[in-house]
Structure formats: structure tokens, C-alpha cells
């Protein structure tokens, strides 16, 4: 939702301009390929780390509000990781925690005006999904050896079905990072395009005079509702990404 991209010429709505990358810090940023996307990643990561640091600083036996919030976020992801992955869940807990809060902070930061949503870039979400994919393959090899390949032919299947089933299983396995990344990317893009379009409607209606000013309230109301929806979608997509990561890791560590 970058402000400059709201309305391009007054008659058309540039809904996609908000996703454009611009170098920050002038020539240095240009040379380092440092756009507002990594800047907001840094902000998101800093917010989460500061939240945990400041929240846990009292280290009180009876926690205050901020400490309780930090502990709840820890417990929430810890329970998710351990209950889904199993006994090895604790090993992967920091990874799942990082995934969940990296995405959640990115989704929520993007809802602030003039900010940038790095989770609306397929390159970022695909990078995250490929990372999960590679780590789950490495975990499979670590915990099951090359024997994990037998998952591509489910136990008890007749051998003559193998030429049919193995490719299907392989495709479904390889499509995991694709579906994982596109789900998050599409959700964030769709939400932000909708917000942009309705914000554009408001400005276009406001240009029509007094009658337009009254009508312009409608898209504002819709945008308020959409913002609420986006708050839900933001946490939901982070949760979905994290729980799918856990499910893939459970398959990797299960014997």
C-alpha cells in the first residue's frame, strides 16, 4: 500500500504499483540491491526480536502483560511444532518459530499505510518454501537415510501400479513448495490489490463533487472490513505455512 501508487492518473487505479521494488539508501542501496523489501524484513525481524527481548527481560515468575504475550507466542509455536512433528519437534521448533513470525510480521507490517508487504512477492515466498522443502529433504536423509524414497511407493501397493503411482507421488511431492509459496503470495497480493482498488474508488468518487463525497463512504467502509479480513488472513496464512512446514517435517522424521 505505498501512497505514491494509489492513483496514477486519476481515472485509472494502479493496483500493482504498490508491489514495485525501489532501492533505498540511494546509490548504496542500488549497488547492494537493497530495496524496501529487505528493509521491511529487517524491521519485522527487529520487531519480533525486540518483542521477545523486552518481553522476557523481567523474567518474572508471575509474568506481566508483555512477558505473558512473549510466553504465549513461544508456547503456541512450541505446542504446534511438538504436537505435529512429534518427539523431534523440539529440534525444529526455532525454525518453525522463525518461519511463523517472519511471515506473520511481514503480513501485518504490510497492512500499515506506506509500508511494504514482502510476503506479496512470489520470489520471497518461493524462497521460503524452497528452504522448507530442502530442509525437509535433508531431515529425511538425516533421520531415515535413503530409505525415505520408499515413501514414493506407499506400502502394500501392487508392484504393477508402481509406474503409475511413483510419478504421481513424485509430482505431489515436488508441487509442495509451489503450492506453499503461491498460497501465501496470492493471498497477500489479492488482499492488497483489493484494498488498493477500493481506496482508488474513494478518491475517484471524491472527485465527483458533493454527491461523490457521500458515495465515497461506501468503499471506505469496505476497506475497513477488508482490513479486518486481512488481519485474519495474515495470521491464518502464517499459521498455514507453519503447520504445513511441521507436517512436511513430521513425514521427514517419521520412520
Amino acid at each position, binding site marked *: 500500500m505505498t501512497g505514491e501508487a494509489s492513483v496514477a492518473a486519476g481515472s485509472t487505479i494502479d493496483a500493482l504499483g504498490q508491489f514495485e521494488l525501489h532501492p533505498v539508501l540511494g546509490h548504496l542501496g542500488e549497488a547492494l540491491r537493497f530495496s524496501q523489501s529487505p528493509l521491511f524484513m529487517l524491521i519485522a525481524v527487529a520487531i519480533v526480536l525486540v518483542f521477545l527481548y523486552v518481553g522476557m527481560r523481567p523474567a518474572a515468575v508471575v509474568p506481566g502483560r508483555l512477558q505473558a504475550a512473549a510466553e504465549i507466542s513461544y508456547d503456541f509455536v512450541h505446542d504446534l511444532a511438538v504436537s505435529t512433528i512429534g518427539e523431534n519437534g523440539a529440534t525444529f521448533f526455532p525454525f518453525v518459530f522463525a518461519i511463523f513470525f517472519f511471515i506473520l510480521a511481514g503480513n501485518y507490517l504490510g497492512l500499515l499505510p506506506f509500508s511494504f508487504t*514482502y510476503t506479496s512477492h512470489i520470489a520471497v515466498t518461493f524462497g521460503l518454501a524452497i528452504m522448507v522443502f530442502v530442509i525437509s529433504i535433508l531431515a529425511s536423509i538425516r533421520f531415515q537415510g535413503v530409505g525415505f524414497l520408499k515413501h514414493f511407493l506407499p506400502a502394500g501397493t501392487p508392484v504393477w501400479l508402481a509406474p503409475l503411482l511413483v510419478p504421481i507421488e513424485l509430482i505431489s511431492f515436488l508441487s509442495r513448495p509451489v503450492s506453499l509459496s503461491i498460497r501465501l503470495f496470492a493471498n497477500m497480493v489479492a488482499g492488497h490489490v483489493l484494498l488498493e482498488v477500493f481506496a482508488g474508488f474513494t478518491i475517484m468518487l471524491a472527485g465527483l463533487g458533493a454527491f461523490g463525497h457521500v458515495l465515497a463512504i461506501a468503499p471506505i467502509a469496505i476497506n475497513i472490513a477488508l482490513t479486518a479480513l486481512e488481519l485474519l488472513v495474515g495470521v491464518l496464512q502464517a499459521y498455514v505455512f507453519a503447520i504445513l512446514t511441521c507436517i512436511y517435517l513430521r513425514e521427514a522424521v517419521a520412520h
Partner: protein
Amino acid sequence: MYRTPRLFLFAAPLAAVPGRAVAAGMPQLNFHDPLLIGQVVWGAVIFGGFYLGLSRFALPRVERVLTNRRTRIQSDLDVARKAKAEADRASAELLSARHEAAEQARAHVERIQSEARASADAHAAETAKRLEAEIANAETRITQSREQALSSLSEIATSTTQDLVARLIGTQDEQTVASAVKRVNA
């Protein structure tokens, strides 16, 4: 879960607003932009740093606090449980002591009662014996008195009869009167 309807919604404004935005395409798919690949590299670095910061410092700190609390609550519970066990034992001891004392007191009371009863019985028996002896004594005395009285009766009767006879007829025949009295008496 949201994919199908949301993708549809996402496509709708794109179709409704033809123009520069659509013609230019999505900036996310402009892979010639060095910033696009740059953000992935930066993202990897930042995410790696985030992961290290979380796994080395932030999360262990939270865990320490949680473990600390758990052990503290556990130890407090243990102390409380131990105190309760001690209190239970003390209370049981008190109860048994009270029971024992009550038992002892009852035995004591019973012993005293039986002693008192025995002494009372002995006293009563002694009294009865003494009374019996006195009764027997009295009876003997009564019998003696009666026998004495009975034995002196004929004497009195004889002397009375002699007096009467002497008064009536003026003679005194002791022998005859005595035999007559003896005859009447027999």
C-alpha cells in the same frame, strides 16, 4: 482454503481496470529486476540471522524462564505436599495418642470401679457376717431368756398356787401343790 474465491476476486479488478497497470504486468514477476533477486538474497541473510538470533538467544531465554517457573512451582508443590504429609502424620499421631489416653483412662476408671465394687462387696459381706453373728447372738440370748423364763414359770406357778391355796384353805402342802402344778404343766 481461501485460494479459489480470493484468486477470483484478485482477477476481477484486473479485468475491470485495463490500462497501464495490467500492461506493465506484475512487478513480482519482473525477474529482470536485480532488486527482485536481491531481495531473495537479502531475505536469506536476514532470515538466517533471525533464525540464529532466535535459536541462540531469544528462545532459550524464554525457555529458561518457563523451566524456572515449572521447577519453582514443582518444588513449591513438593514442599506443600511434604508439609501436608507431616501435618497428616502429626494429626494421626495426635489421634492415636488421644485414643490411647482415652483407652487408658477407661481402663483406669474400670479398675477403680471394680476395686470399689470389690471393697464395697467385702464391706457388705463383713457387715452381713457381723450382723448375722449379732443376730445369732441375740437369738441365743432370746432362747436363753425364754428358757429361763419357762423354767422359772413352774416355780412362779407353784409359789402362786401355794399362796392361793394357803389363802383359801390355810394349809401349805408344798409337795401336793408342786405335783399338781407339774401335772397341769405337763
